């Protein structure tokens, strides 16, 4: 990540943003494809054999295979959901690869020399610092001379996790951070206890498919009372062509613990749309707190809307214990299609859920995103701040549910939904669903729609900023509340991304 060694961001856009944008000027930065990395594919299509193959590649126990097969059987009877405000061409689910991994990863490398240099090259291009690359490749001693602010990284390349950094140091604190395939092998009791308890295998079409074919992802367990000593981060990259990426993330914050988790995504430019259907489950016990931040920068397709990632993701946090807290922050700038509703089940009394979102859709991108706040416990609180930005021919929908159950006495929700339009061909939609089933709860909803104003741009330009700087400044101002909710490293990257993804949208 380029922003690792950056200094703190103060307010709104900063000079650094402008510089970053200038550096990155031009189109999608992560659009190269590493076609010459030798890949190991399972045959196209999905069926019980493929499910079994994925399971055996990951050396899974029987119970895991059974779980997958049950999900697959259920999936066969399900149909694609079509309630979202999205126009998506039919996906031929039998024409995709469900498993692809770099050949060099068949046996985990013991030293840097054993890692395919092309794979390392990919990390380098992604901006993951060189030393972390060494750690990712498992080189001993590499952990000792890193900068003070540490971020542990798990990198997932197509179907497999290629390495996790700082595992030893995290272990000292009792934190488990590894790939989910490793967790299934090493910590089966934990996985068994929690997997599928927040997003059950029957949840929805994409989540069920994911349950059957997920190939890898990240696993985090923070034991009681432990404050995770560093940020945890996962990088997902889809590289192989015609490949679906189905990663599964499971985060458990035990009583009184705290963890901040970052997720970043990129993909190469391809003419053909690629499918990404991930599931993230978070379990938060009594007095624990989890922050989950995403900067989603999947390839959005070209200016004519060709190619790009179809992003169908199910993310849900279960605030099981009393006074537990979860905060989702997402910056969605990529994907041709985004279908994503990170949700909070506020089960524990006095638990809190927050959702901060920036969704940017330019050219022919479509985004249907929002959240669900399900208030079950007493005095639960939720807050939603959604900033949707549409430019070009894009359509951007906020869809959110706030539900106050009969027992959720004296609960509160505050929702703020702002939409910003750039140009006259795009659309912004707000679809709030509100259910209140008790008489002591309070729900507030505010929504605004505005356009980037020519007068604002002229004002900025008359002070010496060029048009792109001016747009970046105005838009970052619009997004400020959400950018402030991001961890520092991500805030920098997010600001730059906001500017880049809107390039060419004015003038």
């Amino acid at each position, binding site marked *: 990540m380029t922003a690792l060694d950056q200094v703190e961001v*103060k*307010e*709104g856009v900063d000079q650094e943003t402008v510089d970053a944008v200038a550096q990155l000027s031009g189109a999608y930065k992560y659009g190269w494809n590493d076609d010459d990395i030798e890949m190991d594919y399972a045959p196209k299509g999905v069926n019980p054999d493929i499910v079994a193959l994925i399971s055996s590649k990951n050396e899974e126990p029987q119970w895991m295979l059974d779980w997958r097969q049950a999900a697959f059987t259920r999936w066969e009877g399900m149909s694609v959901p079509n309630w979202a405000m999205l126009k998506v061409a039919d996906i031929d689910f039998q024409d995709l690869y469900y498993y692809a991994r770099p050949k060099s990863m068949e046996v985990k490398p013991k030293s840097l020399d054993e890692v395919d240099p092309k794979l390392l090259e990919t990390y380098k291009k992604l901006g993951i610092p060189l030393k972390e690359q060494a750690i990712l490749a498992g080189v001993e001693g590499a952990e000792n001379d890193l900068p003070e602010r540490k971020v542990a990284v798990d990198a997932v390349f197509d179907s497999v996790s290629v390495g996790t950094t700082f595992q030893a140091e995290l272990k000292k604190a009792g934190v488990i951070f590894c790939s989910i395939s490793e967790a299934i092998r090493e910590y089966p009791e934990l996985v068994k206890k929690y997997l599928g308890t927040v997003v059950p295998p029957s949840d929805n079409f994409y989540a069920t498919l994911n349950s059957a074919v997920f190939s890898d992802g990240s696993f985090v367990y923070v034991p009681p009372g432990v404050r995770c000593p560093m940020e945890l981060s996962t990088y997902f990259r889809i590289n192989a062509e015609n490949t679906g990426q189905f990663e599964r993330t499971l985060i458990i914050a035990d009583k009184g613990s705290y963890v901040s988790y970052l997720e970043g995504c990129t993909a190469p430019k391809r003419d053909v749309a690629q499918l990404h259907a991930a599931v993230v489950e978070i379990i938060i016990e009594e007095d624990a707190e989890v922050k989950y931040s995403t900067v989603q920068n999947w390839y959005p397709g070209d200016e004519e809307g060709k190619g790009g990632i179809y992003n169908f993701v199910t993310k849900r946090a279960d605030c099981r214990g009393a006074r537990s807290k979860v905060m989702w922050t997402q910056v969605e700038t990529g994907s041709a299609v985004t279908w994503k509703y990170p949700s909070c089940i506020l089960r524990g009394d006095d638990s809190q859920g927050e959702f901060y979102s920036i969704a940017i859709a330019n050219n022919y991108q479509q985004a249907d995103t929002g959240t669900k706040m399900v208030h079950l416990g007493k005095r639960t609180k939720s807050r939603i701040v959604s900033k949707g930005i549409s430019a070009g021919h894009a359509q951007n929908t906020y869809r959110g549910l706030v539900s106050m159950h009969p027992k959720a006495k004296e609960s509160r929700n505050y929702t703020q939904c702002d939409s910003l339009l750039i140009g006259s061909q795009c659309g912004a939609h707000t679809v709030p669903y509100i259910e209140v089933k008790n008489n002591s709860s309070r729900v507030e909803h505010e929504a605004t729609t505005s356009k980037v104003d020519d007068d604002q741009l002229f004002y900025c*330009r008359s002070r010496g900023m060029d048009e792109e700087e001016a747009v970046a*400044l105005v838009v970052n101002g619009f997004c400020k509340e959400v950018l402030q909710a991001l961890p520092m490293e991500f805030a920098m990257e997010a600001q730059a991304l906001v500017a880049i993804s809107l390039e060419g949208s004015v003038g």
Partner: protein
Amino acid sequence: MLEIKGLKVDLEEEEKSILKGVDLTVGAGEVHAIMGPNGSGKSTLSYVLSGKDGYEVTEGSATLDGADLLDMEPEERAAAGLFLAFQYPVEIPGVGNMTFLRTAVNAQRKARGQDELSAGDFLKEVRARAKDLKIDAEMLKRPVNVGFSGGEKKRNEILQMAMLEPKMCILDETDSGLDVDAMKLVSEGVNALRSEGRSFLVITHYQRLLDHIKPDVVHIMSNGRIIKTGGPDLALEVENNGYADLLAEAE
């Protein structure tokens, strides 16, 4: 410094001529005032010089130190040393005043091939300038012009001017909406910036601003033309007699 010759300008949207041949020369270090009745084209002149969209120059030229202003983008004019203090400064929600200033200062420095001001130097500079204009730290943190009073907005314009150090400053009715104290504060801010190398074009309806910012030359504008040019006394004449006599004289 600023040289305008035979400038004719139409509105882009409709066939309407606003400026009908303006000639104006402002020398280095001079302060010129433009007065005139509503609709005479004063604000249009300031917008055309700073490069706002919506106007079409049909004839004439405008140069700053010999460089063709009309050929430049608004940001290039700014980097060349032109500054417009807006009559109605624009609000930019969510963008801190300090961030805005720093982005602007560094954008101009970059355009001129200078190094960016470090965060420390910038802070020192902005605090000193803000203090002179009685702009407190709180106001520097607030989003640009959002929730500012009329007086605060105008003081903020002068702060921007002080930070950007332009050669040619245009003040478009900077006195409108100001009470006596605020006008004094703003005028002091402007006067502090007067120097040999810096010129001002002060657009105003009222003589009272010119009591504080003493002009070298006063122009009267009417119906898209400058109809009379004189010394500071000309402003007093307008104050006492109105524009009627001057307009009649011009016809």
